[in-house]
């Protein structure tokens, strides 16, 4: 937990309102980049919520990350349109380019984390990936190298 003051601010902002747990965890994840057990314990203590409940929510939703993440997040769309347009080869090209093994999602230098996602909703541009907030569409395996270069 590196940003205690910011986390305290976030908790104070939300505490006392109803249905706050998910937005609170989202805010904290934006600050810390992931939810460590230490952070979840801290939130449980501060808000009087059971740790089991917090952990349950954090593991239920795909958005919450329980491990440290790379500087840039690459979301690789696995939607139907992307699937029939070759999302698989795009994924394997990204893994190759970043020298990631099958059970690894973050590069050793901590620059990139690769994440398969359900659908980015840009189906007419399939196959699609999203690097941070920027969407790239109509991809071919050859176009991956140039896109990644921009972030290195």
């Amino acid at each position: 937990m590196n940003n205690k003051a910011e986390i305290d601010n976030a908790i104070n902002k939300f505490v006392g309102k109803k249905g706050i747990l998910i937005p609170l965890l989202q805010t904290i994840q934006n600050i810390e980049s992931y939810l460590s057990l230490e952070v979840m314990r801290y939130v449980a203590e501060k808000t009087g919520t059971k740790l089991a409940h917090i952990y349950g929510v954090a593991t239920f939703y795909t958005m919450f990350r329980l491990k440290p993440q790379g500087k840039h997040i690459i979301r690789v769309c696995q939607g139907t349109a992307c699937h029939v347009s070759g999302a698989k080869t795009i994924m394997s090209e990204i893994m190759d380019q970043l020298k990631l093994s099958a059970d690894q999602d973050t590069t050793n230098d901590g620059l990139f984390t690769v994440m398969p996602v359900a659908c980015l909703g840009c189906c007419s541009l399939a196959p699609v990936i999203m690097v941070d907030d920027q969407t790239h569409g109509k991809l071919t395996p050859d176009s991956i190298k140039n896109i990644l270069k921009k972030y290195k």
Partner: protein
Amino acid sequence: MSFTIKVGLASCGLAAGAGEVYEATLKHIKSKKIDADVKKTACIGMCFVEPLVEIIQDGKKSITYGNVTPENIGTVIDSYMKGKPVLENIIISNIEKGSENDTMKKQERIVLRNCGNINPTSINDYLENKGYQALEKSVIKMKRIDIINEIKKSGLRGRGGAGFSTGLKWQFAYDAKSIKKYIVCNADEGDPGAFMDRSVLEGDPHSVIEGMIIGAYAIGADEGYIYCRAEYPLAIKHLNIAIEQAKEKGFLGNNILDSGFNFELHIKEGAGAFVCGEETALMASIEGKRGMPTIRPPFPAQSGLWEKPTNINNVETFANVAWIILNGGGKYAKHGTEKSPGTKVFALAGKIKNSGLIEVPMGMPLKEVIYDVGGGMKTGKPFKGVQLGGPSGGCLPAELLDTVVDYDSINKTGAIMGSGGMVVMDTSSCMVDIAKFFLNFTQNESCGKCTFCRIGTKRMLEILTRISEGKGNLEDLDTLENLSKNIIAGSLCGLGQTAPNPVLTTLKYFRDEYIAHITDKKCSAGVCSALLKYEINKEKCIGCTLCAVKCPVKCISGERKKAHEIDQEACIKCGACYDACKFDAIDKR
């Protein structure tokens, strides 16, 4: 003469480079001192030719250009000004005779009435297009029950997929006795291959907000939530802007339009769980819990969010409301068919030429949607199937293309209307693979509460995987059908109840393909890698060694400038050699 230049800046436009086109347009106008108003708008639906730019003269004559780039935008503008528009980029025009394309001609736009036309971040643009007039009519001139009756008269059915009567749903919430009620907009568009709600929220957020305020007034709710996927950052941004603007103008907050009616609206970002599209799971998620469905009854109209009566509709449903109130339910019912009145927005994707967002009257045959509005196949390969309704839907073959789009006709085929995703496939798609794809999705997204959904889908996925690897047997097909029946019967919510649909429909319409995988060990589409064999055509191979370099397991050997050979024992069938060969010398069978 006055000129307006509109640039489409929705997510898909931005991904195609519309942001750069917008900057280049501003720069060009400034440097050439052209007197034109440059406006931002969102998606007009023709995503296949993004980025799109529309130039309008005197508010009347207009040309929409597609495939615009920062490099050619200057020429496009200059030539328009000279009266000699660049022809090859024209998509729609009311100046050049005969150039209006079928994509637009056959559509009837009610939900998308403002999308791609107005600036979604300007409430004034919305107001100029009859915005919030329906709200004014509702709270000032209409009784609450009259509004509900008008919606009933329109015959509007829930556009989230199930097709339940919206008027009835509102009536149930209206009848519930409680001083506190909620209204919720389901904008958790999780179906892979669907982007209707995203486009509406990005392109016309006020229409959804107005529909919600009218609904809240009608049922007697004073607080509402829009539950929107966090994967749609632009939609959330536009919604936030729109809510602030509506507050400023007095359409939200206390004593709306001096009627004494109060309504407060919040946005909740989803955190990525497909099951939260189910209404009871969605409410659990708003309450900050794991999004797991609960048994109905009690229905949300009796006991929903925080145990108060709650009405939930989807984005497209709400976007219809203001139009119905303003034009009358009778006029709405004239669109579409008797049992499914109105229009439906579809997201066309896959191997279709005009992929994008369309709105057609209910009752249009699928053939017309795909070939006339959608422009037919993109790849030159023949049509094989169309997938409707995402993971809850099914795949329909060419023989069923005369099926018309309405809730009941599509249900009869075994697919569902769903929220409106339509993914078109050609012969390069394998139906066993598609069934496996969807099962993998639902299996991942199952919340785990019901045993059949949790374990049954897992077993089905294992069987499908086995078949796709050529290790299946014919009994597996019966097991799949049996399991499907039990999963449908033994699941609490729509996710489990519909999860087998992709398997059942492909088994029904493409059974031969399953059999070919099992008995002949063949995947005719060339997708199931375990059944493929890569061989080097000795006559075509020139020995460039590129395949040997690319092969990750180094199983290709041969001397330079002589035909190479693949060691079939070592080959992992990744296809890297096939993709790399520039001489078409590798056969995939």
